[in-house]
């Protein structure tokens, strides 16, 4: 079982869009996939039209095993299941803090799903908390969407420094450009320069696209309503890049 986490300290960079679409692609290829919505905003859960179970919260998430399994919902799409988000996750940091080895709790909990799933995709909340550290520890691939702007690249550097300082694993740290506008000279230049200098960036670039924005009103992965769009093709390319990396 491989774990991919979509993560960035910065908000609104396309984490959820990528998490949902990549998980959908994996499942459509026959990979048994679990999408974990760990962001209390519950955007991924909303896209998949799932209502979070009533008795659902941080305790079950870190318990793992049956308690966790019971919270999982099968999506409308074959092979794709979802662990819905809940406002209760806000208290997760407190719960984690009260335990020993508090950074490894999520990794251990997810480990109990080996066998049921071949791939776990985590949609992470945009901040640095104990939960984020747990996510970073659990991920085989820590995937960071970066908008091709100077400010965005700065947060990418900050993330790298943070991992180093906190002695968190950095081997799986990768990035891709998200919401790129090729017509903007600055975007194009930033992408070119970064791809040349930083091998941790995947070559596929997700463009700014109205088709992706429509995930909100459609409440579905992009491929369900516009599989031929430029953005859909870009996500397929990104998924290929990721598979090469995981192998």
């Amino acid at each position, binding site marked *: 079982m491989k774990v991919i986490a979509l993560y960035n300290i910065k908000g609104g960079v396309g984490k959820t869009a990528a998490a949902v679409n990549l998980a959908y692609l994996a499942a459509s290829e026959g990979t048994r996939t679990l999408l974990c919505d760990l962001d209390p905003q519950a955007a991924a859960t909303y896209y*998949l*039209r*799932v*209502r979070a*179970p009533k008795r659902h919260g941080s305790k079950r998430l870190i318990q793992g095993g049956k308690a966790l399994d*019971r*919270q*999982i*919902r*099968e999506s*409308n799409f074959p092979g794709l*299941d979802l662990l819905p988000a809940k406002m209760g996750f806000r208290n997760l940091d407190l719960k984690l803090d009260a335990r020993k080895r508090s950074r490894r709790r999520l990794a251990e909990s997810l480990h109990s799903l080996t066998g049921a799933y071949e791939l776990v995709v985590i949609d992470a909340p945009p901040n640095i908390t104990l939960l984020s550290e747990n996510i970073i520890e659990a991920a085989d691939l820590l995937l960071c969407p970066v908008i091709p702007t100077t400010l965005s690249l700065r947060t990418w550097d900050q993330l790298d420094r943070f991992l180093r300082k906190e002695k968190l694993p950095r081997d799986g740290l990768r990035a891709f450009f998200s919401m790129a506008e090729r017509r903007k000279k600055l975007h194009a230049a930033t992408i070119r320069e970064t791809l040349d200098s930083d091998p941790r960036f995947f070559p596929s670039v997700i463009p700014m696209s109205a088709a992706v924005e429509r995930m909100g009103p459609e*409440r579905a992965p992009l491929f369900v309503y516009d599989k031929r769009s430029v953005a859909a093709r870009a996500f397929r390319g990104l998924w290929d890049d990721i598979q090469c990396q995981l192998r």
Partner: protein
Amino acid sequence: MSPPAVWWATDEGFADRVLADVRRRFKIVPEGRQSMTARSFETFDWRLWEDGLVLARSARPSRWVLSRVEDRAIVATASKPGKTVPQKWFWSDFPVGAVRDRLRKICGIRALLPMGRFRESRECFALCDDEDKIVCRLVLEKSGAVDARGGGASLSAAGFRLIPLKGYDKEARAAAACLAQMGCRAGDGWVHPALHAFTAAGREPEDYSSKARVDLPPQITAADACKRIHLFSLDIAERNLPGIFEDIDTEFLHDFRVALRRSRSALSLVKGVFPARVEKRFGENLAKIQRATNRLRDLDVHLLERGAFEALLPPELQAGLDGLFRQLEGERARALRRCLTFLERPATAQILRDWRAFLESPGESSAPLAQDPAEALGKRLLRKRFRRILKDGRAIGAKTPDTALHKLRLQVKKLRYLLEFFGSLLPAPETASFVKRFRRLQNILGRFNDLCNQEAWVRRRLEAAEAKSGTSTELAASLGGLLSELGRARNAERAKFGRAFTRLDNPSVRARAKALFGGKDGSK
């Protein structure tokens, strides 16, 4: 607890009724409908069905589907190799994958034969909540037979398959409640679509089995019992004849011969039940038929041994065998022709007809033991045979010649035959556990005998090869290598004999034999 997966009903409008009722609780979104025609495949002796499986080849989409009898759930699928479509399939004809693996384990050397066609349609309905999240699926499945001309399939048998979604148990239970309320029945009784095809092809699951299962009523006389036992074997023999003529797989001839041998054993083991001239005449005639099949069977056995032989040899010595087996194929083709010519003769058919006429004639026999109770007779023979096995077995030591083991194997086999004949007159669980005690010894003696035969055969082949000038040294090397490997295996098998025999020759088994067969326990 999740609700049952399959729900069926027999009346006309149940599907509409169910959907109308479901619609009151859920939004229904049709997800499409597929229909397909498929041909079912089975071995002659229903190996797949006995394992709870059905194999079918559908035309569009073109693929093999292995599904469960119980609930029609698909177990594995395989793509259909495009080019030629043979009349019969062996597991090795299937593309590499799950279907082939299962078939190899279940069917072994048996061919898969086409067994009629059926048509099936599946219509899928997604049940959604008010956010259009799917919470359960219902698949309406209908099926019917297709006649030989490809038409005339009325999709009669129908039912719903309920497919729950993980995390939506409550909704699945609600859908199940609708099904139950609208008069559907859960589980058993919904026929697998392949059954239509079997019926159309004139077959019925498990209508053939080579296993000896004669059920005798308790008070039956020896003559009547023997007639039933022989009729049972004769049925098996005759049912295998068409498969022998079509040369479908080697098991037809094998089962045919086992049936003949069983009858011949019964004739020679149970003397004095039929008139002496009947015993003599049919004993000789059945032996004659069997002899005519010997050569073909020997060649079948050697050809089937190919894999085992190759496994015994290092790769560099395997090449030498290719020519040998090509030659054997040629010999087999000739032996088959000769065997079929014999079986086709009117005289051969006449033997079997006369035999059946005698067995089905109601006349009371004047033979000395004819009116004895079968049970007492059977027990007496079993007792005698068991005692004989103990005596012969005890005489076998490390230096005893191999022939003693072969003789003992035949004694054990006779005991097994007697148990097959009269077993239904004995208490079942005790008989079964007694039989179990013999299994290991029987396996060892069987393998030992096979290895001796193989060795002798390889030696003959080697001598023949050396006598002929211009034989490849490659073949001689392969055969030489085989000889030493087979000899090693034979010795290993023989070394196991002592331990296996003590599993039989001990007070507890002797006491069991005494309880089963009566009389003395043979310990002296």
